[in-house]
């Protein structure tokens, strides 16, 4: 008998007998003969625990990973400190084996923690309301654009080319079949979105202006100016945040005029995970709350007047509205949202500030050292923890050299911006020691000099 099953052969027989059935095959009689599988599934196994773990450990040995290797790679996923309490708490079966909290009387733990997540995201982004999470930053951005179209009734979008290329790709997949017009904004010589160009592209038919903060090249956009431009045309300002640790230092998008702020919560306590699971966050102004996609938790009282929490505003959702829903989303990323909640509580007011400062200081130290040794910092110092540096040779070649020393180098920008040959997007976080940074600088500058 297989270890995850709980019926013996005798019990099966007893159950069949009680039901007046001869065999379990009878229960499958509705499957027509011509579509039955008449052979066994060709799948390896069954394996014992020992064998399964051995298999995965062998695979793990063929990966570089952030516990053993120095990483200077960000570009939408960030190697940050993950407090030990997070895994200890989310490993409680009460959290990780529960379902979506449809029955609030037996799901107050999940519901209250989501209410706290919503509050923390509002505080972090400076907006009024937030949802219970979306799949990730890229899909959250697509949902934000869909919401802008819904509420404004307009189909023209002005999108910065310095929004994460993969986020833009997802937006393009989601909206390809809609009659939308999406204009892409070029970048300035400072590595920022060309807002002058936005001024000439935007009209009274524009639904939203969309920028990333900090942008994909690490630059910190002028959100106030973007907000003023959007307001002039009755459009929304949608701000995407891929590196929320920056918000420990930078003024919040809400305070600078964003109407919707979406982003990727990974940096907030979620391991790199080779890309997922992560959690998308979504916050907006109070007057737009009924247009938000995804699950939302609200406060209420029980029959005795005790404070409690429930899923609310469900009339926006697919299980009630079907094809008229604000979004098709059902499952969100509850456990990852909980991880980021615990992270934000652990860091707290002081920790978020300190963490952001360390990131800023280390990245600026790395940039200074690279420049001293002859690498060009392409867009100056208006960055948080990521910047663009000239590499003197194709980035792929330099990264191979770094890998030989156990270091994972930065992102090869020529993958998305063909004109940026030999330019690397470098990310330095609090996890990089000075020693690692110095070694990285040495290898990179040697390549520059050789070129």
């Amino acid at each position, binding site marked *: 008998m297989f270890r995850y099953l709980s019926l013996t052969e005798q019990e099966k027989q007893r159950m069949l007998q009680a039901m007046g059935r001869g065999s379990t095959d009878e229960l499958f009689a*509705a499957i027509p003969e011509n579509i039955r599988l008449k052979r066994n599934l060709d799948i*390896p196994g069954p394996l014992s625990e020992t064998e399964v773990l051995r298999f995965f450990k062998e695979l793990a040995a063929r990966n570089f990973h952030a516990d053993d290797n120095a990483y200077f790679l960000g570009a939408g996923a960030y190697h940050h400190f993950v407090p030990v309490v997070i895994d200890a708490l989310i490993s409680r079966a009460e959290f990780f084996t529960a379902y979506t909290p449809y029955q609030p009387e037996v799901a107050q733990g999940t519901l209250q923690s989501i209410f706290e997540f919503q509050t923390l995201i509002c505080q972090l982004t400076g907006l009024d309301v937030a949802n219970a999470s979306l799949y990730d930053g890229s899909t959250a951005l697509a949902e934000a654009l869909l919401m802008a179209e819904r509420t404004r009734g307009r189909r023209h979008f002005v999108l910065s080319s310095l929004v994460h290329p993969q986020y833009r790709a997802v937006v393009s997949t989601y909206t390809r079949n809609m009659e939308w017009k999406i204009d892409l904004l070029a970048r300035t010589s400072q590595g920022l979105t060309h807002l002058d160009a936005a001024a000439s592209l935007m009209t009274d038919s524009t639904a939203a202006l969309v920028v990333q903060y900090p942008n994909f090249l690490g630059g910190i956009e002028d959100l106030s100016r973007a907000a003023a431009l959007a307001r002039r045309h009755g459009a929304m300002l949608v701000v995407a945040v891929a590196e929320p640790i920056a918000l420990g230092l930078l003024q919040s998008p809400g305070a600078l005029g964003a109407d919707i702020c979406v982003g990727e919560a990974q940096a907030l306590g979620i391991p790199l995970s080779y890309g997922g699971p992560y959690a998308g966050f979504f916050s907006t102004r109070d007057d737009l709350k009924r247009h938000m996609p995804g699950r939302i938790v609200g406060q209420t009282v029980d029959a005795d007047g005790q404070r409690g929490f429930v899923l609310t505003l469900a009339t926006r959702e697919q299980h009630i509205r079907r094809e008229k829903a604000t979004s098709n989303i059902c499952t969100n990323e509850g456990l990852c949202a909980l991880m980021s909640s615990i992270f934000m509580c*652990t860091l707290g007011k002081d920790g978020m500030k300190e963490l952001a400062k360390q990131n800023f200081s280390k990245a600026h130290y790395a940039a200074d050292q690279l420049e001293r040794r002859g690498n060009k910092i392409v867009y100056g110092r208006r960055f948080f923890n990521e910047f663009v540096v000239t590499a003197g040779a194709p980035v792929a070649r330099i990264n191979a050299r770094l890998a030989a020393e156990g270091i994972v180098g930065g992102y090869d920008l020529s993958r998305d911006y063909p004109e940026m040959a030999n330019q690397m997007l470098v990310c330095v976080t609090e996890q990089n020691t000075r020693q690692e940074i110095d070694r990285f600088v040495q290898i990179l500058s040697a390549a520059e000099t050789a070129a």
Partner: protein
Amino acid sequence: MRTDPIVNIRESLIFERSTPGKTAYSLPPLDVPAADPRSALEPALLRDEIDDFPEVSEFDIVRHFTRLSTWNYHIDIGMYPLGSCTMKYNPKLNEKLWRIPGISACHPLQDDSLAQGNLQIQFELQQILREITGMAGVSLQPAAGAHGELTGILMARAYHNSRNQRRKFVLIPDSAHGTNPASAAIAGYQVRSIPSNADGRVDFDKFREALHDDVACLMLTNPNTLGIFERRIREIADLLHEKDALLYMDGANFNALMGYTRPGEMGVDVMHLNLHKTFSTPHGGGGPGAGPVAVSRRLEPFLPVPLAAKKQDGTYCLDFNRPQSIGRVRAFMGNFGMHARALGYILSCGGAGLKEISETAVLNANYLRHRLQGLLDLPYRQDSFHEVVFSDKLQTKKGVKTLDLAKRLMDFGFHPPTIYFPLIVPGALMIEPTESEGLQELDAFVEAMQSILREAEENPEIVVTAPHTTKLRRLDETRAARQTVLRWRRAPEQDKTPREAARAGD
């Protein structure tokens, strides 16, 4: 049998626990010169601190979230028979293998040569899901079932676009999950609902009437949400294909079929699987899930990019060279943590184990049906697969509704089934025990239902006011939607208790 109430320690919001000056984090001292942000950024761009962010100690956090956790029902403590949600045991082994640092601490953009192990995990899972479904190609990118649906429908759209056809409609049975029509609408289609027949299956004649040259596809759940197998699925597929329309299969209920039949043989063109249902990855209180899509040969060119691929030299890579792809549906490669766990699960089971899982899941559902029919109304009497749908028709005479039965089950130590779904059954109770439950648990559930149904006859008051043993009693959902409080805010007066604050609606 009635369970004792669990310990319910009161706990405030984390913000209400906050005390200025407390902290829970530690960072190494800064080992480079501190840089002054004002040197690079104008003051208007800088924030002093995040207003009202909590200030608590590490132990405050541990206490807080541990207390919250005790208010949750979960699969490890008892049966969670939510129909169509497949709440099965989530093996501990999969949590352990995911936490091997070489698996979970990898960056999604690190070079393929530095991620061979993880690429192999993705490649092998793709191959195995192809075998289990009998389909030609698989993408692991969608992050959840509904995301897989959207991906699938976008592929259907791309297929017709490639043949210069602009089709307008998607056909969806009235028993379908709400995500089906919502996904079709986001892909730009109009939805046509197909009624179910007296058997609880798609009304074949109505389907034929609705099928014309403007139909892009039919979205069919099999077994459907009544737990009934759509036995004419092959004929349905053939009719669709005659019109160059496609068949989408919602694989939410695939736990019923493994090793018995495959969508490939049914004529399905595109489907999604829920790794968090059939393949045991934990639901996490509402995600993360994963919703891989599988496609027939004709849709393979349109799969999202990238796919994990194996090169001639035996190494693995991400394949971006797919010119007809619909593009990306998510950044990076999807919920990889779920892919690794699902692969661990499948290898633990093997092919024969997967078939035994489906066999046992269907046996368990039929056993519950057998024990409960007569006590509860069974609106559709066709063979059940992995779940069975009853209604509250017999109980409403006494004023006891499905919601009441559901709430009363909590007092007996069980999570309620899915209720009021599918929509075609008024007062539906949709019960899916899964293969994880043993006979003792099933019998205990039956006894609990028997007691509750007896109460409904003799003492309905105790049922309609349930639950009585949970931390909170029934919650006022209307109030939550009308007087929306979606976040905590610092109260103007500090002396209100949380209860008073809740009453005041602030």
